[in-house]
């Protein structure tokens, strides 16, 4: 309760600012529409309006601003327009639409559920690859001093590099390799995006996992030695369990990074997904469509991070960690 009121106030303030901002953002289109409907606009000439400031136009035409929150292709659509679009392109499209799952038995390719599913599968696939690679390399680094000294500095340097810049190239190269000849249809389309996702989640997992595997202190390591434990046993029975809390902290960062990777990976190939949806919206000026895809991506991110947190709590509790 102590937090609910302030959080709600901030969220309401954001919506209020959004609604107010719609007026100056959309004023030019609104006034043009009003003029076509026969209203008197100040200044009358379109050329003069083009050079005038948005705020000035708002103040001088207060009577004709009613359409600010209902424009078809608004520069900034109002929150309720985005909400309506979100509803239409999820429930509306699937339940009532001709191509929706209720009537045709398959998800409609115009619904955000379908596109979100495409993005989600690429994200999870890439996340699994990236996590597996990160964990394996971390184990290698902790076991071998040579590997640590050779690889670790590069892993740290690569954190400062905008890896996402590689995305378009990875996509094109992987497609030109013609993977669909060797792999089943579903995986071949998924793989290029998943590679980018994997790449982005790989480094957080690697760094966190190395830290976690190193977290047992000297006393615990000495105890293992008095038990005459082999290196493999120290890894299995001490280091790996000790690294779990660190692993989950990086997994939460990694899954969010994976989602960003999948979305960016969808930009060059228009074959479905939230990223493709955003780019299509940009091409056709469908701003509500972009906003709806953006909100869907945000919900997906929140869901993934939340799910990861839930798994973390469950796992840590079953391992007996006081969380």
């Amino acid at each position, binding site marked *: 309760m102590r937090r609910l009121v302030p959080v709600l106030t901030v969220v309401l303030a954001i919506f209020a600012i959004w609604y107010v901002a719609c007026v100056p953002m959309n004023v030019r289109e609104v006034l043009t529409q009003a003029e076509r409907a026969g209203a008197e606009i100040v200044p009358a000439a379109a050329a003069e309006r083009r050079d005038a400031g948005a705020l000035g136009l708002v103040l001088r035409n207060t009577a004709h601003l009613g359409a600010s929150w209902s424009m078809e292709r608004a520069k900034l659509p109002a929150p309720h327009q985005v909400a309506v679009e979100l509803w239409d392109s999820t429930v509306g499209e699937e339940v009532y639409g001709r191509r929706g799952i209720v009537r045709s038995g398959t998800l409609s390719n115009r619904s955000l559920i379908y596109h979100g599913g495409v993005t989600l599968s690429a994200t999870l696939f890439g996340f699994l690859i990236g996590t597996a690679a990160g964990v394996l390399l971390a184990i290698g680094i902790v076991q071998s001093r040579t590997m640590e000294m050779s690889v670790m500095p590069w892993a740290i340097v690569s954190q400062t590099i905008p890896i996402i810049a590689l995305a378009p190239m990875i996509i094109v190269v992987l497609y030109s390799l013609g993977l669909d000849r060797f792999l089943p249809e579903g995986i071949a389309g998924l793989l290029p995006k998943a590679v980018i996702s994997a790449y982005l989640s790989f480094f957080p997992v690697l760094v966190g996992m190395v830290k976690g595997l190193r977290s047992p202190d000297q006393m615990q390591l000495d105890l293992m030695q008095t038990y005459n434990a082999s290196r493999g046993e120290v890894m299995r029975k001490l280091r790996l369990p000790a690294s779990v809390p660190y692993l989950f902290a990086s997994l939460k960062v990694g899954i969010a990074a994976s989602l960003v990777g999948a979305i960016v990976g969808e930009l060059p190939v228009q074959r479905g997904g939230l990223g493709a949806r955003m780019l299509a919206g*940009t091409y056709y000026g469908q701003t509500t469509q972009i906003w709806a895809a953006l909100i869907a991506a945000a919900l997906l991110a929140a869901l993934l991070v939340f799910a990861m947190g839930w798994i973390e709590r469950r796992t840590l509790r079953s391992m007996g960690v006081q969380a």
Partner: protein
Amino acid sequence: MMLVIAALLIWAVGWGLNIWLANGVYSKSGLTQIAVPVIFGGTIIAMWELLVRGLEVPGVILPPPSAIASAFASSLPILWGDFVQTIVKGALSGFAIGLAAALGTAVLVDRYDFLKRGLLPVGNFMAALPIVGIAPIFVMWFGFGWQSKAAVVVAMVFFPILVNAVAGLQDTTAMQRDLMRTFGARYWNTLFKLRLPAALPFIFNGLKIAITLSLVGAIVAEFFGSPTQGLGFRISTSVGQLALDMVWSAILVAALAGSLLYGVLVLIERRLTFWHPSQRG
């Protein structure tokens, strides 16, 4: 075939050298610490070159490092223009605006407990969202020029810096604040003389996350529309022309810029937070 065997030989020699160096008597010395990763990187590049030539991998899939180096050297003016457009105009100006806005907000949030309880959960939530998605909208609003890229960067760096700065501003002990009060210090004196300096290590942690994000934001925003210049533009058009040596050159520029900016941040941090335990080593 000879080249492939040579590549494997180089790998064996490089790795053997590293095993010897890392487990030898000099493994703790500073020179070895630098030599081992350099040898590893050099081995990888040599293997890349030899394998690409030996297996005759087409240049449209993976060009050899020598081709990338020559493309890089021969198109320096173009790449410099891209660097200025994306890094200096887009990323750095956005980074500066985002930093100023986030620090201002952090001071406000820290001053008013209501804002702290309301804005911080929202900020933490926003920091986990794929904010790059806002790029197409900002490109539509602010045009194809660098302004839209700077706006995306502002949106991306704002929350990581804000969350870290607020955490840092709370990092003074009651004893330190009481001492300031006994000196008769007002709110602003305490803020500038005690709490902002004490927050600097946290702020720099946020800045280190944000600097990479700013490059990501500026480059990805260019995929949605840009003038005929910029690293993101160069990458997406060169991919379209299958000029992969040019793509790799642009990526090299981005990588160098990222490491350079990060290095500059670390240097500034060392100067400003020389008193912090992590810097005294």
